[in-house]
């Protein structure tokens, strides 16, 4: 029996008939060949989030980001005009990686007035211009203007930095985000600058972890030991239903959920440390002061439901923004490393704490996030292992798993379109 109303069609899934209701093939998550196609069809063409502007606080601040799925490394830098720019992290002289510390494969960050190559000392300005060539007179007709850093399309939405690796992106970032971008704009992301960033290498296809966090059908079961015993039984009996789902253009989607525990109705539901600190998995129970959360943009709590607790916005292909009712947010980025491995990044953003108590509440929320994510990550490895057995390749997805259904459909459709485009050039087989 439904606890919350569904669309007139009888289910969320049937509200978008193109999704179908049939079992879904997970061959897209278990194939080296399919991953090779995803690199081209998705990761070299989509707008990809690489972080936020606060990570580049002043002129000359830079970070590097490894994008293994596109086999490149990107430098993000704030230039002399205060604009965020992106470049491929390669020296134009002989292809050395330009910015790195002790280990070439590891990301780095810092602040500089120019970039200097470790190999032969070529230098580049913050705008990418080649400014110095060691023993320039030894070269043959070399015009420095012909050898700037290779720029990458870079745009900022609400403080989130996106790049697009295509030579000419098919859409601007604004068009790509569409109504999701318009309707979520205005949320006070820029005021929640206290950031915790987790990373984890997970031995599972990137889509499997997106699936895990795109449905909460698993929550009362997988995480039942995190609640006190009576509450765990009650949660499992109730199951999970979302308040609202939406599917947008370009593969984006949202699941909107009830809150449950901010604060809990019965304090005996939660663990002693949560009772004392008034914080937990759902974040600090009390809203931060000084941030106006009274007039939220229309994308937040789209059902305008009084029991609303959080919205999980899935920005295609691999970025999630999760907005919590008590006034903080999370982001997830999923970076494929191989068909059966990815790097997960989770960032928690809070209002800067005004005192020790607020800081301690954030610590509990951040530690709790890790305890849950460890369980989620490990489960995915178990899933990937059995996908490899290829005993079962199609799986029934319920109405609460509509976002998983949507993600796999959009990925499969985009790969199919790419194959159709390139079929005449290089035939590739997918099992």
């Amino acid at each position, binding site marked *: 029996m439904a606890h919350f109303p569904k669309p007139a069609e009888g289910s969320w899934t049937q509200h978008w008939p193109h999704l179908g209701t049939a079992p879904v093939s997970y061959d897209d998550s278990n194939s080296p060949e399919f991953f090779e196609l995803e690199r081209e069809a998705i990761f070299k063409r989509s707008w990809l989030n690489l972080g936020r502007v606060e990570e580049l606080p002043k002129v000359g601040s830079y970070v590097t980001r490894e994008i293994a799925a596109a086999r490149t490394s990107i430098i993000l830098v704030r230039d002399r005009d205060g604009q965020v720019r992106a470049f491929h992290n390669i020296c134009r002289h002989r292809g050395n990686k330009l910015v790195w510390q002790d280990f070439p494969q590891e990301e780095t960050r810092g602040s500089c007035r120019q970039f200097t190559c470790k190999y032969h000392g070529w230098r580049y300005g913050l705008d990418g211009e080649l400014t110095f060539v060691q023993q320039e007179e030894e070269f043959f007709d070399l015009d420095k203007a012909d050898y700037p850093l290779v720029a990458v399309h870079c745009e900022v939405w609400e403080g989130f930095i996106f790049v697009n690796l295509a030579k000419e992106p098919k859409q601007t970032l604004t068009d790509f985000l569409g109504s999701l971008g318009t309707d979520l704009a205005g949320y006070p992301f820029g005021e929640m600058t*206290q*950031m*915790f*960033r*987790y*990373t*984890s*290498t*997970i031995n599972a296809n990137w889509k499997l972890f997106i699936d895990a966090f795109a449905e909460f059908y698993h929550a009362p079961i*997988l995480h039942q*030991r*995190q609640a006190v015993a009576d509450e765990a039984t009650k949660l499992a009996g109730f199951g999970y239903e979302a308040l609202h789902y939406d599917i947008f253009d370009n593969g984006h989607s949202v699941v909107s959920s009830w809150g449950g525990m901010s604060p809990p109705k019965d304090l005996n539901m939660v*663990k*002693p*440390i949560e009772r*004392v*600190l008034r914080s937990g998995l759902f974040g600090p129970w009390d809203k931060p002061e000084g941030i106006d959360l009274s007039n939220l943009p229309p994308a937040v709590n789209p059902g305008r439901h009084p029991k609303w607790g959080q919205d999980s916005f899935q920005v295609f292909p691999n970025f999630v923004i999760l907005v919590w009712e008590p006034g903080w947010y999370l982001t997830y980025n999923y970076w494929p490393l191989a068909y059966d491995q990815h790097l997960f990044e*989770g960032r928690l953003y809070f209002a800067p*704490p*005004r*005192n*020790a*108590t*607020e*800081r*301690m509440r*954030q*610590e*509990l929320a*951040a*530690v*709790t996030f*890790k*305890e849950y*994510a*460890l*369980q989620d*990550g*490990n*489960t995915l*490895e178990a899933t990937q292992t059995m996908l490899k057995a290829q005993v079962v390749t199609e799986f029934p997805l319920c109405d609460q798993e509509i976002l998983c259904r949507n993600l796999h459909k959009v990925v499969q459709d985009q790969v199919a379109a790419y194959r159709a485009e390139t079929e005449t050039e290089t035939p590739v087989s997918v099992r």
Partner: protein
Amino acid sequence: MTTPTTTGPLLPAGFADLEPFAARWALATEAERYAERLSSSMPDMQAFYDAAFPRLEAALAHCDALDITALPEDAKHLMHLMFSLVNVSFPVEAWKQPNVPESGAASMDLVHEPML
């Protein structure tokens, strides 16, 4: 690098009862706190929890009276000690074992955290 090395008291006056736990648990980074938890026995963590949990609110009251962006060293140690309490509360209150159940070989590294 971040383990307190001074020989005098690490914690503010008034928290002498927690001093026996400070050298081991007043650790500045989550990575150190989590590693200490994983390498500790349940009786050790229970003893730390039983001593520190009843003092959490007093510790916060002490630190709340100070500027969070400019805490003196002893107050930082007290905060770090209570960050460790938050970390061991999971084994003590929920798991009954140091590591997260069903987490196997999975890891989740805090690569950026706000420092005191």
